[in-house]
C-alpha cells in the first residue's frame, strides 16, 4: 500500500458527552513523517481527540483517515498502523521490562527471532538493558515512560500518538524523552503529540494547533504562531533614575518601571532593531546596566489567544493563509 501524503486527516470531528461538548468540530492534517502537536490546557479535549483517532472512542461526527484507513469501518487496519503511549502508564507493573516487551512482540505476532532482536534493540535504545530483568514496579517515572514508549514501538507503528508523554517527568527525563521522539521522526514515523507544555511543542513540533474548549483557535508552525502576536521587546535596566530619565526621553514608545529602573522598548527581537536601540542610546550617551531580549514564545501566543475569547475568529482567519 502506498504511503498516503497525510498520515492523519480529520475533518469536522465532534464529540459530546450529554450536553457537554468536548470537541466542537476540529480539522487536522498531519503530513507523513512530521511531528504535529496539539497544545492546550487540561480539559481542552486533547485526550478525547487522541482516543478517537486511536480507535478507543467513537466520534459523534467527522471524517477520519489514519494512515489511509477509516477507524469507523476498519479499526483493525488503523490499529495495525498506530502506536499509542497514553497519559497513564500502560506497562504491566508485575512484569519485568523485558517481559513487557516480549508481551508486545507476541501480540504483534512477530516470530521469535525477530521479536528477540527487536527487544534487545529497544532495551539498548531506551537505556533499559540493565533494568530489563527487574519488575516495572521498581522503575522510576522516567524509566517507566521510556519502557512505555519502547512497548509502543515494538510493532513498528507508522503513526505514533503520544498523549502528554512528559507530564510529571523531571527536566532531565523530559530531555531524554524529547531526544527519543526526535529520533523516531528521523526514521520516517509520523508523530501526533499532545502537551500542555508550550516549550515542548516549540522544541519538537513541525506544526502546532492550539486547542481550547474543543476548538482549534490557531494553527501553524511555531514561528508563524509567534508572529501572530506582538510581544517581543528589549528590556533595559539602568544604574540610576537619572539614566532612566534620559533613556525614556530617547524612546517615545516604551514602558517604564521607576522602581525596577527598567525600560521596555518594543522590538521584533532581531539584530537590526537591537543595533538601532544601542545606537540611539550611544547617541544620547546613556549607560545601560543590563540588557535582555525577549522574543515572543508560545506562552505569549497562548495567553493572548485564550485570554481574549473573541480573538478566535480573527486568528482562525490568520492561520488560513
Amino acid at each position, binding site marked *: 500500500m502506498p504511503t498516503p501524503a497525510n498520515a492523519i486527516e480529520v475533518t469536522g470531528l465532534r464529540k459530546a458527552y450529554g450536553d457537554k461538548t468536548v470537541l466542537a468540530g476540529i480539522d487536522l492534517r498531519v503530513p507523513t513523517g512530521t511531528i504535529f502537536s496539539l497544545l492546550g490546557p487540561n480539559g481542552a479535549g486533547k485526550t478525547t481527540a487522541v482516543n478517537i483517532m486511536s*480507535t478507543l472512542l467513537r466520534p459523534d461526527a467527522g471524517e477520519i483517515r489514519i494512515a489511509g484507513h477509516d477507524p469507523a469501518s476498519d479499526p483493525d487496519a488503523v490499529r495495525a498502523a498506530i502506536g499509542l503511549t497514553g497519559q497513564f502508564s500502560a506497562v504491566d507493573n508485575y512484569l519485568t521490562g523485558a517481559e513487557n516487551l516480549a508481551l508486545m512482540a507476541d501480540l504483534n505476532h512477530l516470530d521469535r527471532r525477530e521479536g528477540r532482536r527487536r527487544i534487545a534493540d529497544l532495551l539498548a535504545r531506551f537505556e533499559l538493558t540493565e533494568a530489563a530483568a527487574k519488575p516495572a514496579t521498581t522503575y522510576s517515572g522516567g524509566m517507566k515512560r521510556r519502557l512505555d514508549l519502547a512497548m509502543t514501538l515494538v510493532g513498528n507503528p507508522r503513526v505514533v500518538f503520544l498523549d502528554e508523554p512528559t507530564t510529571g517527568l523531571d527536566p532531565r527525563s523530559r530531555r531524554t524523552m524529547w531526544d527519543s521522539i526526535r529520533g523516531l521522526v528521523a526514521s520516517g514515523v509520523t508523530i501526533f503529540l499532545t502537551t500542555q507544555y508550550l516549550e515542548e511543542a516549540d522544541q519538537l513540533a513541525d506544526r502546532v494547533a492550539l486547542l481550547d474548549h474543543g476548538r482549534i483557535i490557531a494553527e501553524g508552525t511555531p514561528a508563524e504562531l509567534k508572529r501572530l502576536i506582538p510581544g517581543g521587546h528589549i528590556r533595559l535596566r539602568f544604574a540610576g533614575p537619572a539614566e532612566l530619565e534620559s533613556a525614556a526621553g530617547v524612546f517615545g514608545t516604551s514602558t517604564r518601571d521607576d522602581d525596577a529602573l527598567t525600560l521596555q522598548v518594543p522590538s521584533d527581537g532581531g539584530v537590526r532593531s537591537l543595533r538601532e536601540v544601542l545606537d540611539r542610546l550611544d547617541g544620547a550617551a546613556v549607560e545601560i546596566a543590563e540588557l535582555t531580549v525577549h522574543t515572543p514564545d508560545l506562552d505569549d501566543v497562548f495567553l493572548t489567544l485564550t485570554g481574549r475569547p473573541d480573538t478566535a475568529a480573527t486568528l482562525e482567519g490568520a492561520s488560513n493563509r
Partner: protein
Amino acid sequence: MSTTAYALRDSTTMLRRYLLRARRYPMIMFLIGIPVVMLLLFVYVFGGTLGDGIAAGGGRAAYANYVTPGILLLAIASAPQLTAIGVAQDMTEGIIARFRTMAIFRPSVLTGHVLGNLVQLVVALAVVVGVAVAVGFRPNATPVEWVAAAGLLTLVSFACVWFGVACGLTARTVESASNLPMPLILLPFLGSGFVPTDSMPDAVGWVAEYQPFTPVMETVRGLLLGTGIGNSAWLAVAWSVAITVGCFYWARARYNRDGVR
C-alpha cells in the same frame, strides 16, 4: 487479516502473561489457604459432633467425608474475588488502552484471565483434595467417577471465573471489584456443604435445596462417596452452563461499551 484468526495465539499470549504474574505474586496461596483452614477447623473442631449427626456414631471420620465436597465448593466460590480484582486492575490501568489499540483478538485480555484463573483454581482444588485425604477423606470412586467429578468441578469453576470477570468489568474500582463476588462464599454454607439441607428450618432449607451449589455438592459427593445423586447431576450441569452463558454475555456487554474507563 482478521484479528479473529489470532484468537488462539493471542489468548495463549495473555494466558502466559497471567501465569507470569501469578508466579511472581502467588494468589493461589489464598485459594488453597482458606479452604484448608476451614477444612481443618470443621474436621478437627466441629467434626466430632457434626459427624454424629450425619451418621449415628460416625464421628470425625464420617464428617471428613461429608464436608470435603463443601470445602471444594468453598474454594471455587472464593475464586471470583481474585478474578474480579485482576480484571478490574487491568481495566482501571493504562494497559487496557494499549491492548484496545492493538490489532489483536479483542477478547484475548479476558480469555487470558479466564484460562489463567481456571488453571490456578484446578491446581488449588487438587491440593485441597490431597489435604482432605490426609485428614481422613476416604473416597471410594472408580477412575470414571473421578474423571466425572473433576469434570463437573472444572465446569463449575469455569462458571464462577466468568462471574468474577463480569464483576471485575462492572466494578468501577479495584476495591469494589473485590467486594462484589464476596456473597458467593456463603453459598456452600447455605447449602448441603456442611450439614444436610433437611436439618435446616423450612425457609432456609428451601433456599439451600434450590441454590446452584447444592446439586453440585450432591453430585460430587455421590460420585466420590457413592451417595445418591438423583437428578442433581443434570441440575448441576444446567446451572453451570446457565451461569457461564449469562456471565459471558454480561461481561461482553460491559467490555464492549463505547468508552474508555
